[in-house]
């Protein structure tokens, strides 16, 4: 990892989680200076034709005392909403790592579904 970088990885490279499972993340950062804050956010958002919605479900702050480092973070995933897609709207889950100042960020997406895949509507 070069300078000024953020890394956020889901452990074991998993892409799909069942409701209620635990999301385990590895966080790495190498910034030009010690960040004021490092925060991980668990959220879902929508994409599609209409107004976009977003809801942040949980945030976790990393106590950072150095410009570079690594940490582990865990989130208990909620029961809903499931990841789904239709013609008009998709609901997507993601986690992001945000470093201040400068609002640098990186994100990682995953599917939350009891079936092991995104729910497809209208098929």
């Amino acid at each position: 990892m070069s300078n000024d970088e953020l890394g956020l990885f889901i452990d074991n490279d998993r892409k799909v989680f069942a409701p209620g499972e635990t999301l385990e993340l590895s966080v790495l950062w190498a910034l030009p200076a010690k960040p004021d804050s490092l925060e991980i956010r668990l959220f879902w958002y929508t994409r599609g034709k209409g107004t976009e919605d977003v809801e942040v479900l949980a945030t976790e702050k990393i106590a950072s005392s150095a410009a570079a480092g690594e940490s582990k973070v865990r989130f208990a995933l909620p029961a809903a909403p499931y990841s789904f897609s239709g013609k008009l709207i998709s609901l997507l889950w993601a986690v992001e790592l945000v470093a201040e100042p400068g609002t640098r960020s990186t994100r990682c997406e995953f599917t939350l579904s009891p079936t092991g895949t995104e729910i497809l509507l209208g098929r």
Partner: protein
Amino acid sequence: MILARDNPFSTDRVLRERYRLSEREWSRLQEKLSYHCGRGALVGPKGSGKTTLLEDFKVRLSHPGRRITLIRLSAESPILPHAFDKTFFAKLDHNDALLLDGAEQLSWLKWFWFRWHTRHAGLVIVTTHRVGRLPMLHRCSTTPMLLRTLVRSLGEDLPHAEAATLHRRHRGNIREALRELYDRHAEKNTGVLSTPTSLV
């Protein structure tokens, strides 16, 4: 069927397209704003890019020490939110830039109230459908060519004749034309489920 997250005309992708104004036009716009003592209107019909231009203006006006407030009104929310009461307006001074999107939503009486209470603000810029409320800084308008350019920028192609038809059908409202293209695209058949691509 194309899934919403893969539709090139999804709201997030469309909103990433900014108002197309050259540096020369920006300079002219800012000169006009200075000439009119920091007061002006971006005028144009629905779907002509006024809000986008106002948002871009907000970015250009940003500098240390300036407080910028963007108030959005619409047919669904036509009145000033409670946060913008007399107390808020009483604090305005020359460091404040007040941007009002949808000034046509205010009745004349409310408009005069707004003008009076923003008299101490350094800048007041509004968007409106018709001329008359503040000196016009820029008239927003659209063409079939602009529609084509936007569609191309979204990674799709729109033949000229089709762009002209679509533009005419929606009376120049680019937002509505892009929504129609969203629907058309959503109906397309595809056997492939591609991964999300635009998540900036």
